[in-house]
């Protein structure tokens, strides 16, 4: 019981952390805590096989997958915590609390008989007992899970696979396109400006400042822009603020006079 009382608060706190963390990575770590704690609780409850599976499958495989995808779509980005649907949060909280309360009341009604314990069931060993069930009574369901896994694998492949729809464009094509854009739209044919040329901020996520003081969006690498990770708003006033921090600029003062 000690284990439970130690782990239970941790798990609840971690679960709360899961839904409150701004950053997805933190949430994932919280989830990992819950899962490992669960594994321990399984062990405590005479389920050594599930303990192992929980660690291997959940913490080992599933959590890794989560983190993998997180890395893929931008690990740094923290979510905005401003709710966009009116009343959603309040309603969720109310329903959640009511749900929890109701279920807890319900438990008192349901769990009345005393605990039998698994000593007898686990007499031949937990794994053997499970195996006996899986391969006799639940054998059909088990086979179906096999089919499910295969389907899932195929599904993941289909979903993640990207067919090349057009032949890749060669350097020549790109160059021609660039010149055509210059001719037709007046786009600068040269390389895009490198980020942070006016090195107020020494990073690739800072857009370059153009001579008129505006930012050049295309100076930030495209993948950052797509994730929305470029630094915003190095507009004129920000530049001025930064300049003021750095020190008085004589030219500026001359101009003022």
């Amino acid at each position: 019981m000690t284990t439970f009382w130690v782990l239970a608060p941790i798990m609840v706190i971690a679960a709360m952390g899961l839904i409150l963390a701004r950053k997805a990575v933190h949430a994932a770590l919280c989830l990992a805590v819950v899962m490992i704690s669960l594994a321990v609780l399984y062990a405590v409850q005479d389920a050594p096989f599930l303990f192992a599976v929980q660690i291997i499958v959940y913490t080992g495989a599933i959590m890794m997958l989560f983190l993998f995808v997180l890395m893929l779509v931008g690990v740094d980005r923290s979510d905005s915590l401003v709710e966009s649907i009116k009343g959603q949060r309040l309603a969720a909280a109310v329903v959640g609390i009511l749900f929890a309360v109701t279920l807890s009341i319900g438990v008192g009604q349901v769990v009345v008989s005393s605990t039998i314990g698994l000593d007898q069931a686990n007499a031949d060993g937990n794994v053997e007992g499970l195996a006996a069930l899986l391969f006799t009574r639940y054998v059909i369901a088990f086979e179906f899970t096999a089919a499910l896994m295969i389907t899932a694998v195929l599904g993941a492949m289909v979903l993640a696979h990207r067919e090349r729809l057009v032949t890749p464009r060669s350097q020549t094509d790109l160059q021609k396109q660039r010149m055509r854009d210059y001719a037709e739209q007046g786009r600068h044919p040269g390389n895009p400006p490198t980020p942070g040329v006016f090195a107020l901020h020494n990073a690739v996520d800072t857009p370059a400042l153009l001579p008129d003081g505006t930012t050049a969006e295309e100076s930030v690498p495209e993948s950052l822009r797509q994730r929305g990770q470029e630094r915003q708003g190095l507009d004129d006033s920000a530049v001025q603020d930064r300049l003021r921090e750095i020190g008085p600029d004589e030219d500026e003062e001359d101009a003022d006079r």
Partner: protein
Amino acid sequence: MLELSWLLIAIPLAGAALLLVWGKGADRFGHLIATAASAAAFVLGLIMFVELIGRGADDRSVTTSLGTWFEAGRFHVEFAFTFDQLSSLFVLLITGVGTLIHVYSIGYMAHDARRRRFFAYLNLFVAAMLTLVLAADYLVLFLGWEGVGLASFLLIGFWQHKETAAAAANKAFIMNRVGDLGMVIALMTMFATFGTTSIAAVNGAIDSASGSTATALGLLLLVGACGKSAQVPLQAWLLDAMEGPTPVSALIHAATMVTAGVYLVVRSAGIYDASEIARTVVVIVGLVTLLVGAWIGCAKDDIKKVLAGSTMSQIGYMMLAAGLGPAGYAFAIFHLLTHGFFKANMFLGAGSVMHAMDDDVDMRHYGALRRAMPITFVTFGLGYLAIIGFPGMSGFFSKDKIIEAALGYNTWIGLAAMIGAGVTAFYMTRLMMMTFFGEKRWRDEVHPHESPSVMTIPLIVLAAASVLGGALYLGGWITDWLEPIAGHAEHPHLPVPVIVVQLGVMAVVALGVAAGVWLYRRDVPDRAAADADVSIVTRAGRHEIYTNEVNGALVVLPVRYLTRLLVWLDARGIDGTVTGTADRIGEASQQLRRTQTGYVRSYALGIFGGALLVVLGLLAVTLA
């Protein structure tokens, strides 16, 4: 032979069906088939009549049944026909006059492209009219009753391309339907009271029922009779019905169909004998119509409408007589027969005149036609003498008898009937003077000429009948003949000797003739005086004593507004409620739609909330 009464009906019916189904192929000879059918029915009717005469007095009613028409529950209708003294006379009138008019129509309709159709309708009419008079059951009678109504509708509206003709046909049918309503309710009352609608059974059992039943039946049948016979207050259709071809006016709207109401009353003698009130109402209706018809006849310039007013008036006489009970039934029928002859004669004569005048019906455009159309003039003149009751002519006997009977019933009613005779003499004299005497007033391009012999021969025959029709009364034959049906007629108790009455009537008639001759001795203007310039009496007569206006204001307009109101209510009220409900639901759905934000988290909240409800429900059930 007497069992063949169904054949009387079948022959013209087959003629009508043949002509209608055969189609254009029969255009060339259709009229001959129709005339032959009518003539065959007449011959058969004559043979049957002779056989009937040969029978004993109490063996003269032969009922034949073709089988059950329909039955359910307690109700049972036999398709049965009775050939007896009354119906035999009608059969002869209908087929006899009918055949003559068929012959006449061959000439009259010679140039009409739809002549085959016309003859088919005529045959249909003859069949329906025979059904009416031969029926042994009120329901079969009603079949004929509506059949003649249909034929009348088709024939009044025969020239359908004229709006007025179509409107007149509709008016006739719809006003008759009002009468039919009375008939139908009477039929239902008979069934509810006696469990049958057999004419013999109902009239035989009427004494067992309460007096009020008899009165109700009598009044309801009178409503039907008023519709069919153009009696006040359902008379307005008859003048419009003159839109039909003239032979139709002669056959249907003078000689036969319009007298069906009188037939009905006489046929229902049992019912009327049992109800004093019903009889009195019949007398009043007859008297009022008599005077109104005569009034209208005096004011119209349209020759056919004068004759139509006159028809109304004469049927009023018959109704009056029929309302007098056994004292008058036979005379009603007698007058009906003689009127059938002389009025058909005059209508056909008027048709002959119109034929000569390029279908102009305005008497003010006639004048001095006696020289141009001698045969028409002579035959028409004989009809004229008959209708005014010139001594020795048929009308003299029949009308005199009615006036005598009316005097015996009530002095004032008798006097009123007498005045009616005088007025009749006046307007008929007016018609004669304007049409055949005086100076010619027709336009130069009109060339009056005598009609072809196919038209004049029927005129001559009918004129002869008009003169000789009084023979039916020789030795009181007709009263004796009809006694089994009409009951024994007591000689009326008159306040003065009969001869005084006859002289009085003659004096009144002579006065009327004299007035007519005097007033129209000189030229009449070929255009009628404007409404404003004539007396209110004339104006009312011209406007058919404003009955159309009254009907319009009391019936047509309210129904029209009611209809509009209901159409509006149906769209707004009933359908509005339904569509309104639909709209409200639609609006509510629009509101609910807002909850469907498209955000998956909203839906998830819904699912979660739903799960909560389910759990709550389960808990509630387990805890309860």
